[in-house]
């Protein structure tokens, strides 16, 4: 099977279209996802192809339509709800914490809630503190939910298709700044299972655990490090919840060093979960150095690009962290 080049955004759109073609119960709802094509243009031609019954433009009522998605998922539909910016998850957070992930369990396993919540996450766009956050850690503490964050077009398509077919509520965190990046995507039908990390680059000297946009920063750093003879392994978690612990643990046992890189602010971020996963496993005994977490500084995302960039991990900081842990 060949591969064709497309953007992250196009790959997402393909997944949406294919799944809507495949299953008439799949439909989308969200703000301005129709004629406007979505705030980031992800919908593209979907509205023309599937019409207003399948691409439902909602009022600006995130609680309202997220609740509607839940109710319709419980009763047999497979909604895909789009929240324009991940920051806005906060205005319908009850649906994400107290409803979608709990209803099945609380109701004794009698129903399932098969739905996907797509949203655009991350900063770098100069949109300031209320439009730039990476809130995944706030979503990975609620049993019943799954959380996915793809870093390449290929992953985006394959993971989204699996998310849509999954019988549980899945939060699908798209990376704003990756929407227009290109990559090769397999032709034809394929899916990528949830819960399985991907080693984006193999290496033996140090494990870098990362996900989302930071994968590319890490790969960039890895390349430069390779030129200096330092061979890092880059793990792209892809699914954050549930997390692929065996993959992390095996890698750390091999490399004996680990740094964790994420865009979200450091304190309370997923870096802690990843580090703890390692230090409570047998990999602990293999570690030759402290685990370094590299993340954004603990500050609301500043508007000014110098500040915004300044608080973010970058290739230089990643390289420095790897060297520090290997020192």
């Amino acid at each position: 099977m060949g591969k064709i080049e497309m953007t992250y955004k196009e790959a997402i759109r393909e997944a949406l279209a294919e799944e809507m073609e495949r299953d008439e119960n799949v439909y989308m709802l969200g703000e301005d996802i129709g004629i406007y094509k979505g705030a980031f243009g992800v919908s593209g031609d979907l509205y023309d192809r599937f019409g207003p019954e399948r691409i439902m433009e909602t009022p600006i009522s995130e609680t309202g339509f997220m609740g509607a998605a839940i109710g319709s998922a419980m009763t047999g539909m497979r909604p895909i709800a789009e929240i324009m910016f991940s920051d806005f998850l906060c205005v319908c957070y009850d649906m994400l914490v107290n409803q979608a992930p709990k209803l099945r369990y609380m109701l004794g396993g009698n129903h399932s809630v098969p739905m996907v919540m797509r949203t655009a996450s991350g900063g770098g766009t100069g949109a300031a503190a209320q439009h730039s956050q990476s809130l995944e850690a706030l979503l990975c503490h609620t049993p019943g939910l799954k959380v996915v964050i793809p870093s390449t077009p290929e992953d985006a398509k394959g993971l989204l298709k699996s998310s849509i077919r999954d019988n549980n509520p899945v939060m699908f965190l798209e990376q704003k700044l990756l929407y227009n990046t290109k990559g090769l995507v397999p032709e034809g039908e394929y899916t990528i299972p949830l819960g399985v990390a991907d080693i984006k680059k193999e290496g033996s000297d140090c494990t870098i655990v990362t996900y989302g946009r930071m994968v590319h920063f890490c790969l960039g750093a890895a390349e430069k490090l390779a030129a200096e003879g330092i061979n890092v392994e880059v793990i792209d978690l892809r699914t954050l919840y549930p997390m692929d612990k065996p993959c992390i643990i095996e890698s750390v046992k091999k490399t004996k060093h680990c740094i964790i890189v994420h865009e979200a602010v450091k304190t309370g971020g997923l870096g802690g979960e990843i580090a703890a996963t390692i230090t409570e496993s047998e990999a602990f005994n293999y570690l030759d150095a402290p685990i370094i977490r590299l993340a954004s500084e603990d500050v609301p995302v500043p508007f000014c690009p110098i500040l915004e960039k300044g608080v973010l991990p970058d290739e230089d900081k990643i390289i420095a962290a790897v060297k520090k842990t290997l020192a």
Partner: protein
Amino acid sequence: MKKKETVISKEFGLKLLSDMHRSRKFEEQVQKYFSLGMIHGTTHLGIGEEATAAGTVAGLEERDEIITTHRGHSQIVCKGVDVNLMMAEIFAKETGVCKGRGGSMHICDQAKGVWSGNGILGSAPPIACGIALTRKKKGEDKVTAVFFGDGSSNEGGCHEAMNLAAAWNLPVMFVCINNTYGMSTHISKVMKNTNISDRAAGYGMKAIDVDGNDVLAVYEAVKEARKYIGEGNGPVLVVEHSYRISGHSKSDGNLYRTKEEIAAWREKCPIKNFKAYLLENGIATEEELAQVEADATKALDDAVQFAIDSPYPSLDTVLDDVYAD
């Protein structure tokens, strides 16, 4: 306020009475075993509000669906869910409708169209919109009735759901049980206009007010709303005015209301009044009424026995059902 006018059949009259009795007995049993320490957790009883439950459910079609609140026992009893399994749930037993995982606030029964209670005020109405959306998409003639209280009507979720349902013309019935208090807080403290039905116009929605202690009036109002919705006219807000005789929950000291107020509403007991109506209009005899009550008592005694006799769930199963396959 609507007043009852219909002449009804004996069968229907006794059915409504039975529903109200069973609701009341259900609550009384829960109250009793709660105070005996045999029921764990918390529980919200709706003693005095039985006509809203019986009348509303009667006004719906059997295939219609409901989603309720923290105070939903009666509505679910009236919808025909097995009281044994309901009681077992409240006793935290494995045989309960939710296998003991949900308790009082989360009772559900998909087969009976009961999509459960919800412990978060304002969150059920949006979910109701989704249930109705499925029915609309699938072309099924089913209405989703969502219950909520006067206090909960001030939650943002309620507003978003009403607007969404109206804008999308969804077959949702918003059933507001106005018992004049949200916990201890009288509506006059938290709404400048306490006429909750006045909110409907803003959404372009029809509204009906009804005496929630008059089971026939409720039945008729809901039937009218059901018809309107069924004809594709979009959602309706039905405000049923009643009163909660029981405290809000176990922690209620009733400091916010007078004994006189409670006593006055006790006089308006929907069961007592409906019994008088059935007798006065020659619809049923004293004996028949007594039989209905006795049957309800027996059914609920049996339910308690079933619950007590049932086993607790095993801790080994505790992680089951967090995720669907």
